[in-house]
């Protein structure tokens, strides 16, 4: 078995268990969490380099050959996502070590961060649908535990709405799995790619595809299913908000990309047109919601929704350049968005408020922090030397090439509104003098520590690097996009032998001990 494929999942899960065992020892939990996150980054890097060198890695857990066994697959998309998850985990753990000091919160947050990262990696590496479902549920439970850690009123309120819609999503996902299994008799995604083409009742396949659009659409927070996100993301601790903002919705986007390039590709004219309109409306409603708010983290939450639209747009166009753009967008967005939440937390520590009307004076007092805000904020808006420019360029160029001028126009217009929104934060939150009426209880204001700024600086440098040295990231996204448009490579890596059926008798391992 391929240890490289398993360890990004097992390592954080084991650390989570260890963290729960270490509940009485706060310092011990933090140290274990930090070390494990660093190890996770190393493992994810090794996996990415293995995939880069040797192509798609696939392995069967328990030794049963696909499609009977449980498959783990890492293609370029999965490996890149695992890598970015590891970066997020490390950044969040460092930030949480400085920012979360209450004993009761430390022992809840650190273990569940690890479990969350393990589940997210599991979802990225899962090769069959039911396994993906289980990882979604693990992710849901871990994220709920993180969301309500502290149990303030707002958190409980947000958690009710988050839990309600997420549970409906996973139940629909399960129903979709049932229907798909009934149609094809398999749940292995590579095998599904082959078998779906033989289903006579293509209308039913399309109907099932729409069930999956709704299920993953809720997870990815697309229009009109996103209302749980702005209701909950601003309520927990900043470190938790940041990793949610970076990773969670992107798992939904990943699942959509995976299924709608590998399984549901028969009626592209129908399903992907739905996705196209979803994308346009998601971009637009998200950015309008952001424009109407004053609370920093709530503005940023609405921007997540808006940016999800660009990723779905890349998927909906379904051309190699568009998929490349979608992958590039996901990677760029995770880094930028988590960083913006980190900075919102730093501003809150500095000024003691979340509301733009009460913020200000940062540029005068901490010019460096203002600069650190500038990089991700204007990368999100798509300013040229930063990563967001390339992401938007690829997606919009792809939509122009595909002849979707209206949607390209919407994407450009939304970019303009994003710039307006970021300028609003810049002017009100950073640039203007701090209003004298700002109600700042001193206990809310806490000093900024160097370690707190560490992840912010690192992620800002990463954003700059992607923007200035775009070549390797483009090459990675290009390979991922190439694999997504040619699913046969994926199928062959998982099933071997060009995807023909393995007879059951041959598939049973001799040592299975069925006597």
């Amino acid at each position, binding site marked *: 078995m391929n240890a490289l494929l398993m360890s990004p999942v097992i390592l954080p899960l084991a650390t989570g268990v260890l963290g729960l065992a270490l509940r009485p020892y706060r310092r011990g939990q933090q140290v274990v969490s930090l070390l494990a996150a660093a190890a996770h980054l190393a493992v994810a890097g090794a996996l990415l380099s293995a995939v880069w060198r040797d192509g798609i890695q696939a392995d069967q857990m328990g030794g049963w050959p696909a499609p009977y066994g449980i498959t783990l697959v890492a293609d370029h998309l999965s490996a890149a996502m695992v890598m970015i998850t590891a970066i997020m985990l490390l950044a969040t753990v460092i930030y949480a070590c400085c920012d979360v000091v209450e004993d009761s919160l430390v022992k809840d947050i650190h273990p569940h961060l690890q479990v969350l990262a393990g589940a997210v990696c599991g979802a990225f590496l899962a090769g069959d649908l*039911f396994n993906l*479902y*289980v990882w979604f*549920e693990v992710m*849901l*439970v871990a994220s*709920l535990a993180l969301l*309500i850690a502290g*149990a303030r*009123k*707002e*958190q*409980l*309120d*947000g*958690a*009710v*709405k988050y*839990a*309600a819609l997420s*549970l*409906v999503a996973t*139940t*629909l996902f*399960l*129903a979709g*799995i*049932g*229907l798909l*299994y*009934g149609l094809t008799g398999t749940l292995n995604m590579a095998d599904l790619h082959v078998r779906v083409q033989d289903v006579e009742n293509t209308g039913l396949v399309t109907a099932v595809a729409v069930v999956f659009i709704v299920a993953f659409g809720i997870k990815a927070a697309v229009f009109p299913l996103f209302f749980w996100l*702005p*209701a*909950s993301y*601003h*309520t927990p601790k900043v470190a938790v908000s940041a990793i949610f903002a970076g990773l969670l919705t992107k798992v939904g986007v990943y699942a959509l990309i995976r299924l709608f390039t590998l399984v549901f590709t028969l009626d592209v004219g129908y399903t992907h047109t739905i996705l196209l309109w979803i994308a346009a409306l998601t971009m637009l409603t998200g950015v309008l919601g952001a424009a109407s708010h004053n609370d920093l983290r709530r503005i940023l939450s609405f921007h997540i929704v808006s940016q999800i639209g660009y990723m779905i747009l890349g998927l909906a166009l379904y051309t190699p350049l568009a998929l490349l753009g979608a992958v590039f967008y996901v990677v760029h967005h995770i880094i930028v968005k988590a960083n913006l939440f980190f900075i919102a937390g730093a501003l809150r520590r500095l000024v003691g408020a979340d509301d733009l009307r009460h913020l200000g004076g940062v540029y005068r007092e901490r010019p460096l922090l203002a600069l650190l805000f500038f990089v991700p904020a204007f990368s999100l808006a798509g300013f040229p030397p930063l990563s967001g420019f390339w992401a938007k360029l690829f997606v919009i160029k792809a939509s122009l090439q595909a002849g979707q001028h209206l949607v390209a126009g919407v994407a450009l217009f939304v970019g303009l509104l994003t710039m307006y929104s970021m300028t609003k934060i810049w002017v009100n939150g950073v640039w203007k003098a701090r209003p004298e*009426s700002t109600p700042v209880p001193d206990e809310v204001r806490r000093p900024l520590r160097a370690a707190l700024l560490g992840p912010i600086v690192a992620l800002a440098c990463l954003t700059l690097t992607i923007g200035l040295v775009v070549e390797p990231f483009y090459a990675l996204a290009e390979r991922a996009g190439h694999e997504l448009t040619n699913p046969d490579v994926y199928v062959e890596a998982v099933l071997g032998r060009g995807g023909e059926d393995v007879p*059951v*008798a041959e598939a*049973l391992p001799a040592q299975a001990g*069925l*006597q």
Partner: protein
Amino acid sequence: MDTIIALLVGVLMGASVYLMLRRNLVRFVLGVALISHAANLLLFISGGLVGADPPLIQVGADLPGEGVSNALPQALILTAIVISFSVFAFLMALAFRAYESLETVDPDAMRAAEPPRGWKSQAAERTAGTA
């Protein structure tokens, strides 16, 4: 038999959607319990009700005989039941804590995370600011 179970799935889905659309968190939680049953049943019949024999392979044979039931959906459902049961328990506890803390079971009245900001409240804020 397939038809009856299919109808049952439909009835369960309909009832759960009705429950979930009530403005009452307790009914919503019950709706979530029902809809997970519906999904499990759907998974169950999707495997096809092919036979009633236990899915065991005879000694010396490579394949199970005719008329055995499909074991895979059952294994999947078992996993799904465990997951939905534990999530349901969590949701019950969450609903109770939310009720204790927010003193309502009406999700529309739960506005702690998103305080209402109609023109009225904004106007009130402005007058409060000038006063």
